[in-house]
């Protein structure tokens, strides 16, 4: 396995690649290309860089959006629709901010470069947003909300997994409804990473109503953990390992506050 940890987009993007039939050098070059793509996306969509296209767009300085900007705007609208407004890049302080979507989308683009180059076993982890090439499977640990050095579960991932929470960067989630945030941590597994990323944020914000939306999406599962440490999951959610004491007294809890 070849690994790479690339600081970009305010976080670190980790690669885990099996070169397969390629030479290590060829696989390394593909990772170079994938990293270049991540930096391009960062240049264009950083909210911290005043001259990024996104910053200029937010100031109203962009007359005609680039094709990538148009794609992100389209994905943002789609995300808002499919989460019924629980993910809303327009509701954030400071104006339109698709950051919660761009990271997962960028990781997908990086993974696509690896696939086009001939790799068949690869994982890209963009600061917790993980996607893997079709046909490969990886066990991914889900960080415990109470302890960054511990896991609350391990999930076998064959497409994508994303987690959103309030614990790593402080309270950075905003509820478009104006109420409280439902979960300290929310994870979505399956489908494309851009959608998993968006739904993880929506699930952390909305809790049960968003879990219900996930129930209706084929091939997508998820769970969220409330501040009191209760885990609620979709009916098809499975763990390779889980740090729960299901079956003991107290395993049945009252409904979450909705």
């Amino acid at each position, binding site marked *: 396995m*070849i*690994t*790479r*940890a690339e*600081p970009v987009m*305010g*976080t*670190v993007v*980790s690669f885990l690649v099996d070169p397969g039939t390629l030479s290590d050098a060829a696989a390394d070059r593909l990772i170079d290309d994938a990293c270049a793509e991540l930096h391009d996306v960062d240049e264009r969509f950083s909210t911290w860089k005043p001259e990024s296209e996104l910053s200029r767009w937010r100031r109203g300085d962009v007359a005609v959006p680039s094709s990538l900007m148009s794609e992100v705007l389209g994905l943002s*609208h789609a995300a*808002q629709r499919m989460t*019924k407004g629980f993910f809303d890049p*327009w*509701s954030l302080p400071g104006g339109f901010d698709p950051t919660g979507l761009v990271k997962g989308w960028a990781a997908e683009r990086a993974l696509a470069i690896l696939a086009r180059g001939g790799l068949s076993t690869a*994982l890209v982890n963009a*600061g*917790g*947003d*993980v996607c893997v090439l079709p046909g490969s499977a*990886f*066990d*991914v*640990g*889900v*960080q415990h909300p109470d*302890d*960054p*050095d*511990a*896991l*609350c579960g391990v*999930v076998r991932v064959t497409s994508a*997994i994303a*987690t959103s*929470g309030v*614990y*790593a*960067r402080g309270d950075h989630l905003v509820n*478009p409804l104006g109420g409280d945030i439902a979960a300290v*941590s929310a994870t979505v597994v399956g489908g494309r990473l851009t959608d998993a990323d968006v739904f993880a944020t929506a699930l952390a914000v909305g809790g*049960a*109503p968003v879990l*219900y939306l996930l129930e*209706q999406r084929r091939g997508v599962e998820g769970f969220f*953990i409330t501040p009191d*440490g*209760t*885990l*609620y999951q979709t*009916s098809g959610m499975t763990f390779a390992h*889980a*740090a*729960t*004491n299901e079956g003991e007294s107290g*395993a*049945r*809890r009252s*409904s*979450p506050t*909705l």
Partner: protein
Amino acid sequence: MKRALTLLGATAAGFTSIVALHGTNGSSGPLLNASPATSSPATSSPATSSPATSSPATSSPATSSPATSSPATSSPATSSPATSSPATSSPVTSGSSPTSGGATAVGQTENYGYGTMSVKVTVAQNHIVNVKVNSLTTLESYSQQLAQYAVPILKAEVLKAQGTRISALTGATYTSEAYAYSIQSALDKLHFK
């Protein structure tokens, strides 16, 4: 105004049904019925056959604003958005706070299976600039169903990463500074040969 409504009908169709459009000047204008593009309420909900259809019967439409009291005629049994419950909806404020001088429209209260919701769309310069959840009710039966899957996660006996074989870590996004101390950082070193 007419143009804005048409645009909403075209762009927001499938998301919500537009019932009324309020001007930005605060005067709640006359109710405009849904544009043709947003009709066919029977298909607007992705989960019309869910158990949620039994709940709207208790609704008290009187509490909702004019914007959500739809003139649609369908029966409760079909779970059309028009019949769903606005009972706990927050009142719709007419022409409320458009973010950038646009027009605001509140969609019909829609049954989406888990409960009901309506959405507020703000349009400025022919673009949707804001979509907000305007009202939301939830379904008791799903809450009960959900509770059956609820499990407390252990606070004391968490899975220690060193004892578990994993390839990557998902969690709330770590900063590039915090990465150095993260499990992912350890994994990246571990995998490197």
